[in-house]
């Protein structure tokens, strides 16, 4: 066909000069939500993920759609973000959330002592919180430890991790995003003046190298963000901070049961399908690719679970698993750090143009992390489109495969 003769080619050419393009590395909650946000704002999005969707930390999350109450005393910023996003996700991701609310229960005097600060903190953060009479709480959740001294109700919920990621990915696909799972990013591409203009990857299905190019690349690799940034010679202070979860063969409550105390090991018991899942712990590792499940931590979880629901003492374990939080570095120990996320524009800090890193955060806050990151990306590229992800329900997760 003659030059300029094909109207489709012409349209393609115009689109290329106007439509910005982005590569998202990593298809956990953050990457999938970001792919959706950027695609919805008109970007041509390419996702590059080394494994299956949600095969990093996201798939292995505890599965609590936080009300924020867990952090309302220690980290108001995280708590406020959680409650706002909790309300949004319940609307847009209803398809993969079992929403039965949650209780915070006091088991001893120390817990009771924490109650006033908790109640006040929750109210200050805008989290709907209600004290429930102990007898009423026990009637609603008969498996609870009968010795509980106080109970508070908050809008917690449980979600299905893979399906939540898939729902964001399906929505991204509906807006034209392309997902390359089983593609390992092994390096960055640079243009003539040293700016990052894409990534080189390996298609692991075929064992073939493949390059992807775009106007901007976003490193959304969670606990691996430091390793990936290193490939561009950049240091990102993220430390993998794993925790253990233990699943039981029986769903013992309908609500999420939290211990009324400062964030601690094994303080959350979550119902999911026919299971109950207790979590978690917190310690630091160097390498997040393989984290063994430590038997002593499993034992500890078992003890903590039985404190909340005594019958779990004798219920068979169904599974135990580990995953690593992407906690933002610093000198403080893991758990006391803020749970909110960080977004680095490597142009401002390291004068490397074309690369942004987003890491930290929680599953509950993945949508707003994506929104803020996409705002930054739009600003960098001079592209003016507003975020609409809070307004529309996500596409059915099955449509990831459409």
């Amino acid at each position, binding site marked *: 066909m003659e030059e300029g003769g094909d109207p489709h080619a012409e349209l393609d050419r115009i689109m290329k000069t106007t439509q910005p393009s982005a590569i998202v590395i990593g298809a956990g909650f953050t990457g999938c939500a970001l792919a959706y946000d950027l695609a919805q704002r008109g970007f041509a999005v390419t996702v590059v993920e080394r494994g*299956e969707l949600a095969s990093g930390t996201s798939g292995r999350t505890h599965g609590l759609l936080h009300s924020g109450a867990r952090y309302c005393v220690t980290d108001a910023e995280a708590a406020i973000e959680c409650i706002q996003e909790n309300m949004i996700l319940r609307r847009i991701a209803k398809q993969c959330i*079992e929403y039965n609310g949650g209780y915070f229960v006091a088991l001893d005097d120390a817990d009771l002592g924490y109650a006033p600060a908790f109640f006040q903190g929750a109210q200050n953060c805008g989290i709907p919180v209600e004290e429930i009479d102990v007898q009423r709480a026990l009637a*609603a959740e008969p498996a609870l430890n009968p010795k509980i001294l106080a109970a508070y109700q908050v809008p917690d919920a449980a979600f299905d991790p893979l399906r939540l990621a898939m729902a964001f990915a399906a929505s991204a696909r509906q807006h034209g995003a392309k997902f390359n799972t089983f593609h390992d990013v092994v390096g960055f591409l640079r243009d003539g003046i040293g700016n990052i203009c894409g990534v080189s990857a390996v298609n692991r*299905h075929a064992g073939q190298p493949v390059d992807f190019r775009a106007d901007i690349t976003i490193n959304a690799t969670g606990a691996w963000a430091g390793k990936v940034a290193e490939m561009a010679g950049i240091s990102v202070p993220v430390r993998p901070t794993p925790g253990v979860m233990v699943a039981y063969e029986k769903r013992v409550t309908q609500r999420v049961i939290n211990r009324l105390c400062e964030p601690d090991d094994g303080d959350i018991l979550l119902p999911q399908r*026919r299971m109950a899942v207790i979590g978690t712990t917190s310690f630091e590792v160097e390498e997040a690719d393989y984290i063994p499940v430590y038997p002593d931590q*499993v034992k500890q979880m078992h003890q903590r679970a039985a404190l909340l629901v005594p019958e779990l003492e004798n219920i068979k374990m169904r599974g135990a698993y580990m995953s690593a939080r992407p906690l933002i570095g610093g000198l403080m120990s893991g758990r006391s750090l803020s749970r909110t996320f960080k977004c680095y524009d490597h142009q401002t800090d390291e004068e490397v143009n074309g690369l942004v890193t987003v890491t930290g955060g929680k599953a509950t806050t993945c949508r707003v992390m994506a929104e803020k990151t996409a705002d930054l990306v739009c600003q960098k590229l001079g592209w003016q489109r507003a975020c609409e992800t809070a307004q529309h329900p996500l596409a059915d997760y099955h449509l990831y495969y459409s």
Partner: protein
Amino acid sequence: MTEQLWQVHFKVHRQRTGGKPYVRTFTLDVDPEEYILDAVERIWALHDRTLTYRHACHHSTCGACGMRVNGREKLTCITTISSVTQNGGTVRIDPLRNFPVVSDLVVDMGNFFLRMDRSGFNSVAPLAAACLPYEQPLTAENSIDHEPERLVDCIECGLCISVCPAANTDKEYVGPAVLASLHLMYVQNPTQEFIDQADHHTGLWRCHSAYECTEVCPSGVDPAWRIMDMRKKVMSDRIKSIFRPRSSEKKNAQPA
């Protein structure tokens, strides 16, 4: 968990897209109470970075980790090594059957997920409907503000399709999970639409009643019972329609 480690030989199916399949053996020292998926992940992390496999939740809620372990369909994240072999033993790991293999242990779930979608499958249901109709429903007493709900049992792992002899001989057969989904949807909302989708030669009537699906299902869906129950509904519907005028026949259909 035990302190003593076992030495186990993992014989793993390998295959590049479009390439010839072969088997590679990895010998690992393992805690016998570790799960098969942990061993597979360790092989990838420490021995062979080219190995591909699917996984996400590691606690039987996502359905991604289905494989054949010593020839039997297993959810590998909850299958302990000690349940399939012994110290010094061998564990064979293969991809699911009746799905296209993309590479190594990764199968293409696309067609299956789209069939589930067409069946109307909903992941969340009111608590009573989420359980099997013949079970004592797990209800919450004195529910405070609304009827409790939960994620339903089918995790779309495809084990039932891999094990099904009918799915093996007929690629058009929608398979146990899709029929179980239609039954679940019908129980919640008894409309003709679900019956019509199931009442088909590539649906309810392709099943040979092998019951392998129920045997292998890791999540308590009981697809075989659901298929039989759905057949009963179709049959009683047909019988009733002989005695009833056509227009009203299906409106009053009741769930079991």
